[in-house]
């Protein structure tokens, strides 16, 4: 076993003088190889394969359909980095050695291997199923949600991956799903739900009213209604997984919202939703009626936790949300719940902000799957709607393309550690975010046994990683082992390589503690470009 598993040789080069260009480029180069199924290894004839320059990834340079033996070949190429993209029926568009948002560029030049590549295309999986009711009759128009459990954000999170509806036979189909761990959830109402409103008049018999006034609880695979009992399943590459559901209609609960029309000049509207895995899900079965002059009633509810979204119109337009646990027919005063303390702030940058359209600030608790976004206006100001934000530690991100790394973060009303704030339910919070103008770049090459090593995950780990999640940087090494880490804030870091680690929680440094201890730190100064080599264990 090697005593030093990762070697660093950090070479400072002048910004702008990056790498030595190949001297006297020897004519033209070629990218060639064959496409095969990543599962069966069979060659894939007729796959569409294309190349584009990494710097102009949207501009296809050349493309072709693979030959009967899966072959492709692109000639006449200048030295450089190329994205290799392939797709075919049953194989969604994907890059060479793609892992989530990363892939390995094919690097072309003297002495570099860019021919006889094996492009392993991963076949799509799909999830199918049938939704029936307690009488085994199909439930048409049920909404089926697919959630994916995925560690690509650094920690495992569950997020919505796809959504579809059942057809007239109750069948649904979620195609083009990559391998991974999934949950499936169904939200539906009995088809006669819309008639329940009509049947609610006073002349209906009690039995008829009860027959119409039923609802399907939100149901998770494998047929449970509480999230703790839900089962995830693993979808393998190219697999078709069947997740059938039998929904049981139960008597619906009624929630009466009192003091709803307190201000005649400010009419209000209430809509209920539920949150599953952090995603708001609309409930098709809810039926809203005016119970009396000042009360609104929402019927069609199953027992459970709900979010009431209340919108005011009139002179003042307001939105706020509050949580309610519905366990029986019950009443609720929408004004009894106090609005959460505000969280707002300003983003600044020395020399002026140059934000991309739809830039936003993100508060993200990666461990708890809680996130909240607020758009940034043209003055750099932002304000969250924190009604449903659970108290805790939140990393602060600014999403505005490259050059939107936070240089300094300060707050009143909240404790700040690194790039993390502690949110409590008691204080309004004012954030002040200064974007850095001093970002550096680290170019490197991953090697094993002195040979370039392609396809390995490169992780730039900041100090106090738990408090500085926004400062992590990642890349995947290209076919010549090279990688680039952009937008690095000045400070001390370690560079970690993780082989075959695309399914691990790469931001959880407790997993890599022993290795990290052996890796020397590097000091990154402002506005520099570095060249480094990392050895892969």
């Amino acid at each position, binding site marked *: 076993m090697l005593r030093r598993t990762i070697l660093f040789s950090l070479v400072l080069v002048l910004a702008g003088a990056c790498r030595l260009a190949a001297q006297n480029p020897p004519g033209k180069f070629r990218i060639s190889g064959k496409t095969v199924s990543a599962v069966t290894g069979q060659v894939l004839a007729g796959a569409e394969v294309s190349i584009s320059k990494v710097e102009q990834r949207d501009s296809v340079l050349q*493309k*072709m359909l693979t030959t009967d033996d899966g072959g492709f*070949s692109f000639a006449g190429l200048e030295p450089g980095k190329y994205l290799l993209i392939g797709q075919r029926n049953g194989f969604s568009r994907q890059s060479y050695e793609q892992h989530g948002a990363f892939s390995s560029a094919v690097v072309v030049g003297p002495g570099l291997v860019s021919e006889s590549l094996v492009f392993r295309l991963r076949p799509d999986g799909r999830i199918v199923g049938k939704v029936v009711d307690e009488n085994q009759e199909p439930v048409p128009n049920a909404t089926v949600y697919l959630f994916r459990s995925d560690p690509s954000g650094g920690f495992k999170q569950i997020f919505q991956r796809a959504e579809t509806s059942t057809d007239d036979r109750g069948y649904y189909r979620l*195609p083009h799903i990559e391998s991974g761990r999934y949950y499936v959830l169904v939200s539906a109402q009995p088809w006669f739900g*819309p008639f329940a409103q009509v049947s609610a*008049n*006073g002349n209906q*018999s009690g039995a*008829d009213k009860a027959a119409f006034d039923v609802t399907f609880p939100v149901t998770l695979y494998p047929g449970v209604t509480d999230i703790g009992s839900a089962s995830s399943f693993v979808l393998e590459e190219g697999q078709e997984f069947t997740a059938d559901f039998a929904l049981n209609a139960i008597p619906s609960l009624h929630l009466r919202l009192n003091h709803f029309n307190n201000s005649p000049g400010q009419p209000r509207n209430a809509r209920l939703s539920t949150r599953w895995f952090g995603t708001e899900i609309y409930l098709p079965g809810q039926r809203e009626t005016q119970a009396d002059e000042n009360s609104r009633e929402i019927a069609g509810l199953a027992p459970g936790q709900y979010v009431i979204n209340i919108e005011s119109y009139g002179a003042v337009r307001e939105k706020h949300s509050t949580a309610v646990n519905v366990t029986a027919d019950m009443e609720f005063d929408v004004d009894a719940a106090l609005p959460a303390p505000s969280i707002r702030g300003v983003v600044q940058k020395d020399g002026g902000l140059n934000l991309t359209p739809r830039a936003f600030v993100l508060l993200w608790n990666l461990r708890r799957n809680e996130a909240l976004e607020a758009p940034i206006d043209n003055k750099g100001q932002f304000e969250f709607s924190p009604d449903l934000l659970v108290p805790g530690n939140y990393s602060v991100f600014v999403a505005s393309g490259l050059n939107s790394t936070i240089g300094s973060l300060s707050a009143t009303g909240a404790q700040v550690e690194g790039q993390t704030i502690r949110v409590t339910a008691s204080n309004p919070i004012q954030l002040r975010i200064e974007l850095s103008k001093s970002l550096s770049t680290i170019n490197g090459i991953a090697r094993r046994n002195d040979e370039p090593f392609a396809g390995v995950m490169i992780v730039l780990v900041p100090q106090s990683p738990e408090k500085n999640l926004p400062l992590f940087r990642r890349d995947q090494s290209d076919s010549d082992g090279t990688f680039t880490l952009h937008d690095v804030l000045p400070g001390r870091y370690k560079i970690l390589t993780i082989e075959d680690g695309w399914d691990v929680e790469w931001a959880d440094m407790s997993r890599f503690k022993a290795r990290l201890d052996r890796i020397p730190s590097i000091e990154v100064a402002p506005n520099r470009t570095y060249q480094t080599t990392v050895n892969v264990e």
Partner: protein
Amino acid sequence: MHEVKPQMVRTATTHLLRFGVCLMGLCLTLAEARQQSQAQEPAQVSDSSANSKPADNTLSVTGMVVNTLTGEPVRGAVVAINTAQISRQIALSTLSDNSGHFQFNGLTEGRAFISAIKPGLGNRFRGQPAGTSVQVTRNVSPVLLKMDPTGAIFGRLTGSDEQPLEGFPLQVISKQTVGGKQQWVPVPFRATTDDDGNFRIAGLPADTYCLQVGQNQQTTLSGRGVPNPQEQGYAEVFYPGVADFNSATPIELTGGREVEANFSIAAEPLYEVSGIVTTQENLNSPVEFFRKAGDGNDFFQSAMVQDGRFQIKLPAGYFRVVGSTATGIQLAASGVVVSSDNPNLNVALRPVSGIRVELQRESSSASTQRNTPEQLRSIGINLQLVRTAGAPGASYWWAPGQSDGFQGVAPGVYTVQANGPPGTWYVKSLRSGGIDLLSEDLTVVEGAQPQPIEVTLRDDAASVRGTVAPADDMAPVTVLLVQPRGTGNRIKVGGAFQGKFEMDGVTPGDYLLLAFEGEDRLQYENPEVLNPYLSKAEHISLQPHGIANVNLSLFPTGR
């Protein structure tokens, strides 16, 4: 004097809406019902006895719902009962039990309409729920509600290499009688092929259908192992893979059946075409290329124009190119030919000749006069050009004050419909050159300057009112005023409601009057269909400002 009911407007949509109201939402589609569920007031039970005696509200109606195809009972159908006084909008509803039975209690004596709905059963899009009228009395016989199962068209769409084609939109077109004519009408049934090329369009009533695959923006490559081969694209096709609607194979769907329609469509080479757009006008839009196929178009693509230049990928064929100026002037170029890559295509756009409309009114108290736009607009007339044959195409609409006529009308044959005017006004004449548009069609020829449409309105219209027997509370009735003209007929259409009808704006003259069951069932515009009934029609003669009262007997249409 009885209350005047508004004259029925003859469109499938209003038919459905009207029925929707009378059944308290029962025949609404689920989506419509969902939208309305928040808006509906709680229903009120009507008091069917208008006299002062206390109503006997202890009557019951029982019945059973069955599937007409299998004869089996239908469980879990929503069954609703509406009493005769539908203006009071009462409905009681129940779910049929496991043996298909239902029962309504607490009813008062009188006529009622009982109907049922369940997914997969009944003709919902035609607004014809399974239902029947009954007289609620003591000891009324059990009601049998028959529900027609709906059918489905399903299949698989593949390319010429037998690979599945995903994401292609499919639309169903159905042969219907609209406005007394058989027409192909797009109906709201759509699907998109899935990842395996499969599609399924369900909930279709028994009917004759045509299946249309919409244009898809996907492109494929033409040859394996060839660097940068030519791209290929897909145009719009009709089942079983033809570009011309007139060559499409209709699909006959009988009740409750599922018809499989697998087919394969071929991609066509796309050529790289670029060039310049020349025009005397100030072009202010992208240019849109439409490829001619039969009497329609089967491929559409638009291109931005920068400094007078455009770049586009098109299949071979004859194209009509259109654009517009900032002020809305339609520009077009016809006969643009694409047969290969072409870097020098010159598209010369010229203003499209509009069809001018000249509107004048005649007063019974004064001579013919031209009028100010405000005066004409206040009459409330509008004109519509509707394609008469072939694939359903765009229709064009015009009203006074909008512009001086129809703009950008594509070549084709159109029926000119004059809608309105209400009250005492009527369309005395509708002409284009030597053509009487009240009984003939308008032909718009590519590149030719069309004659203006001349409309003359007159203000001494007559009225007809009367009764239709037997009167059914719920079933729609069509009333026709017919003037035989040579080999054809000039027809004005109205509707009866609860056995009564009233039609204003009638051109003075002699008429034959008939009343038919249902709406849009009879092809009355076809003289061969209508003329056998005319010998049994009522004759009337209407003077200017005249009012006629007529009692009509209802002709069954046997549907």
